[in-house]
């Protein structure tokens, strides 16, 4: 294992110390229990937005704390969900009296820890609603699995709900928006290489030189199929086809699109994939109204990419353009 670290166990605490120093104008890091919070929290009368999950996906979630996005994020150990005491403390810290929305990715551990935290908050009289994001089309959604994983749409949900809360939407309206975003967004990912959890010290899985894992999750958990590496045009077409057929997206739709790196992919390759994607969408008369190309929801040093499409209406487009000031997304300010 080659990583820029001191000791594997200390990675989360030490990277958060750096984050706090680098972005002291935007956020602060609280310890024991650990959470990252907007400098000006709680904002009186504003619906609070809290998310969280394992570390190793940066900039998600801690890099999305700031004005116009998350009020707080709870980072767990690498690829391990945060604990209820962290989530409860963060929720209390951001509650401006208008209640708090939890944006939770659909993983068994995340769901259970957020549920336990919500119970603790409700005992303290804080109104909490939770929306579970489950946009990964690579996973069969059935009674016989844990359901679809929460991936790229989480970034869109945090941006749009954060903007809505900043505009003054109450908890019920922010929750409804979050459900609408989740319902209209779909993602799929693929990996060229594995990733190494610092405390594990070796790659989570092995991929041959000429292989790729189609439908990879963001924790190195295997996808739906291991197959020979395809040219970018073909693999983009394959991922796009699976995503487009699922909602389904239709000619005339407007979308917010994301081509996301997994942490180890050069931007050059991500723009190449984006070019292929927009060409495919234009051919189907689907207009890309807004887009992100870069590393937004990563899997340590994994190489590969994911594609997320969100069918966007006027409300979502307007909220997308609202100002945002976080380490990971900044515009309009």
């Amino acid at each position, binding site marked *: 294992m080659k990583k820029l670290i001191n000791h594997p166990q200390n990675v989360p605490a030490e990277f958060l110390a750096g984050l706090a120093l680098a972005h002291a104008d935007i956020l602060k890091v609280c310890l024991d229990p650990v959470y990252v919070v907007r400098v000006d929290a709680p904002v009186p009368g504003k619906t609070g937005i809290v998310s969280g999950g394992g570390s190793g996906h940066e900039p998600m979630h801690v890099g999305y704390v700031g004005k116009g996005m998350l009020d707080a994020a709870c980072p767990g150990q690498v690829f*391990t969900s945060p604990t209820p005491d962290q989530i409860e403390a963060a929720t209390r810290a951001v509650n401006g009296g208008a209640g708090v929305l939890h944006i939770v990715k659909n993983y068994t551990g995340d769901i*259970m820890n957020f549920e336990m935290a919500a119970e603790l908050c409700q005992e303290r009289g804080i109104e909490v609603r939770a929306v579970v994001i489950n946009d990964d089309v690579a996973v069969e959604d059935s009674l016989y699995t844990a359901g679809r994983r929460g991936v790229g749409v989480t970034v869109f949900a945090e941006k749009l709900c954060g903007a809505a809360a900043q505009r003054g939407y109450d908890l019920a309206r922010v929750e409804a928006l979050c459900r609408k975003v989740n319902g209209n967004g779909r993602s799929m990912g693929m990996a060229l290489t594995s990733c190494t959890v610092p405390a594990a010290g070796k790659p989570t*899985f092995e991929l041959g030189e000429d292989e790729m894992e189609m439908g990879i999750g963001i924790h190195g958990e295997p996808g739906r199929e291991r197959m020979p590496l395809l040219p970018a045009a073909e693999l983009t077409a394959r991922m796009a086809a699976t995503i487009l057929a699922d909602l389904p997206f239709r000619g005339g739709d407007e979308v917010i699109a994301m081509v996301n790196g997994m942490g180890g992919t050069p931007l050059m390759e991500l723009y190449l994939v984006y070019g292929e994607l927009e060409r495919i969408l234009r051919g189907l008369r689907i207009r890309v109204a807004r887009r992100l190309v870069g590393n937004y929801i990563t899997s340590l040093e994994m190489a590969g990419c994911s594609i997320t499409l969100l069918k966007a209406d006027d409300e979502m487009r307007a909220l997308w353009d609202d100002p945002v000031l976080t380490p990971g997304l900044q515009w309009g300010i």
Partner: protein
Amino acid sequence: MAVGKPEVLKWLEVLQQVYAENRQWLTELDSAIGDADHGINMDRGFTAVKAELAAHPPSEIRSVFQSVATALIRHVGGAAGPLYGTFFLRAAAACPRKTEIEAADVVALFQAGIKGIEQRGKAVGGDKTMLDALLPALDAMRKGLENGCSLAAILDAGAVAAHAGMLATVAMQAHKGRASYMGARSIGHQDPGATSSYLLLKAAADTWRS
């Protein structure tokens, strides 16, 4: 025999060693079908339990279990934190306020803990989870109790059943947790949660036999 606070503390001390020794094995099992953190998380959790019990020695058996639950919930994360945390929380609630607990009490608190895991995780037997070790173990322990067996024999029966249940997860397809995302590819791998649950029962059987 009966189990007093020293025996309960001994069990937890052994568990800390067991999860430290098996950290790599559990993590390797989790690499195959999950996210490669189970051994790391269990080791961290029970190390925190040890520290918590040393820093704040509980006065009675029930409060030992409460401290364990809090430490696990705060330090494990993932799915294992809430699940094992709930196990000890429910065990604490089911634990009578006595200085020594009898075989029937021990079975009752395992039963309460395992029911708690069922409720929290919403899994059933055959889903390739911790429950595939715990539910057969509970059955075996209840039978042992009904047949008037000694606590040592009851716990041995539980550990043997948990071991068989753990091995049976190899042939199962996962329906819960991250392994379920693999579909049929989860078949052929032993479930790491069932494995850590077997280790939990095995340690109790080994510790409380005399």
